[in-house]
């Protein structure tokens, strides 16, 4: 049984260095879009992430899995500096987007969050019309020079999110009047509207029924052709279905990372195997 309090012995036994347990990709390797190096996160005195180093590849889906409280959502929030908004939260280490450290003082977090968008567990459309939900971001970022431009952005975003056909005749209706699955796709469209390069998804299907979930998973397959996607999920089956790379977190450490098929059929570490087979005590 592993001690849940003292992290010291665990560091020794399972020093998680992605290089040694990172399995090479069996599919075509895409370029590294984001790279984390020795990232630590503290909430006040409490350390939540311990020296996490991870490469995230472009045009693919990377899944972060692990039990509750393992740090996967904390890590996800580091990728677009959402942790900045949490009082007492401190991040050390380096996270690079296209080779540039996003925590450097030269980087504007607002711009960053347009490039690295986020979709949350509970769909959270603005209390505005469907049109306004999508138009809001591009407008404040100055991405449209005319109403026609803005219209085009809204339509394209809705199309890319697989929602346009369902809402094209009611763009002025409130976004909150849509079903859960539709709202989530609206949120994805909203993220897409500001031309992101990376889309972060924090358990995007947890609040959705199986059919809505399947539609979002299908959407992810399309989106990954053009975007880098990182998804946190509690469902091992979902991670196995949608991702190309999977990273397993436990107690603030990155334990194992590799090709998704390998991680789920023949993981390198027993701890990983215990988690994915439901043997965690």
């Amino acid at each position, binding site marked *: 049984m592993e001690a849940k309090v003292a992290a010291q012995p665990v560091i020794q036994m399972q020093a998680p260095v992605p290089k040694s347990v990172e399995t090479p990709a069996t599919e075509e390797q895409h370029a590294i879009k984001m790279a984390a190096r020795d990232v630590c996160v503290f909430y006040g005195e409490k350390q939540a992430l311990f020296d996490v180093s991870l490469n995230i590849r472009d045009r693919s889906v990377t899944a972060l899995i692990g039990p509750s409280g393992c740090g996967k959502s904390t890590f996800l929030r580091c990728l677009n500096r959402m942790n900045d908004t949490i009082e007492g939260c401190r991040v050390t280490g380096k996270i690079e987007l296209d080779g540039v450290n996003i925590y450097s003082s030269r980087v504007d977090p607002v711009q960053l969050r347009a490039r690295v968008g986020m979709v949350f567990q509970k769909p959270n459309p603005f209390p505005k019309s469907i049109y306004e939900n999508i138009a809001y971001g591009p407008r404040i970022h100055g991405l449209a020079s005319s109403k026609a431009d803005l219209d085009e952005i809204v339509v394209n975003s809705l199309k890319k999110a697989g929602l346009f056909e369902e809402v094209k005749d009611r763009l002025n209706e409130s976004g909150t009047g849509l079903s859960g699955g539709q709202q989530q796709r609206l949120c994805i469209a909203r993220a897409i509207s500001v031309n992101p390069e990376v889309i972060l998804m924090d358990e995007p299907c947890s609040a959705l029924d199986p059919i809505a979930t399947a539609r979002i998973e299908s959407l992810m397959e399309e989106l990954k052709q053009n975007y880098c996607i990182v998804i946190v999920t509690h469902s*091992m*089956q979902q991670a*196995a279905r949608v991702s190309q790379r999977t990273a397993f977190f436990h107690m603030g450490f990155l334990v194992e990372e590799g090709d998704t098929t390998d991680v*789920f*059929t*023949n*993981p390198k570490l*027993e701890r990983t*195997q*215990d988690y*994915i*087979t*439901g*043997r*965690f*005590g």
Partner: protein
Amino acid sequence: MDTHEHIVRSYEEELSALNNKIAKMGGLAEQVLGQSIDALEGRDPDLAAATIQQDEAIDALEAEIEEQVIAMIARRQPMAYDLRQIMAALRISTDLERIGDLGKNIAKRALAVVGEQQPKQLMLGLKHMGELALGQLKEVLDAYIERDADRALRVWYTDEDIDAMYNSLFRELLTYMMEDPRNIGLCTHLLFGAKNIERIGDHATNIAETVYFLVHGRPITDQRPKGDTTSSTPVALRSAG
């Protein structure tokens, strides 16, 4: 490998039940093989008949195992080691079912030759080959129960010995048939019996491969030494004297 148990106890129990069914099936297959060799050697029609009956129990177990495997895959979405365990059970049950059929076939041959004069030399050769195959089967089933890949690997390599025996038996039987055509009937049955034993040996190596994969998560990459040359053994035809 599985030092921790599943949180859901019924999952653990189902895997255990699967394991036990394979063990039981294996025991029955060993029995069928052992008895069929004895029946052939001892010209014992009663034993042969009883052995043929036992194959039914083996077939029934295969159907049970297949049903359980499919249900577990649908319900549990097994991953990693669990998935390999469940797939291994399916594959091994198929091999054991074939071994049962082959053993039954040997017993049928025993019934067919019961009235005939049986040359001691040939029968000894057959018996020895049968014992080798039985030994391989026992060993590989132990390897499965123990999850011992090294033991399985040794079985895998040892199949060569059975193949070598089969080659020499094949030649002996040909010679016997050529010496006196009245021997052809008996020798043909014995030849099929020997072939069945050689096939049982091959199935034991299949099981060995499955055990290796179960433990290591990757297949054996070596080339298996294949010693059976009978398919290319020329038959020298001479006019009978």
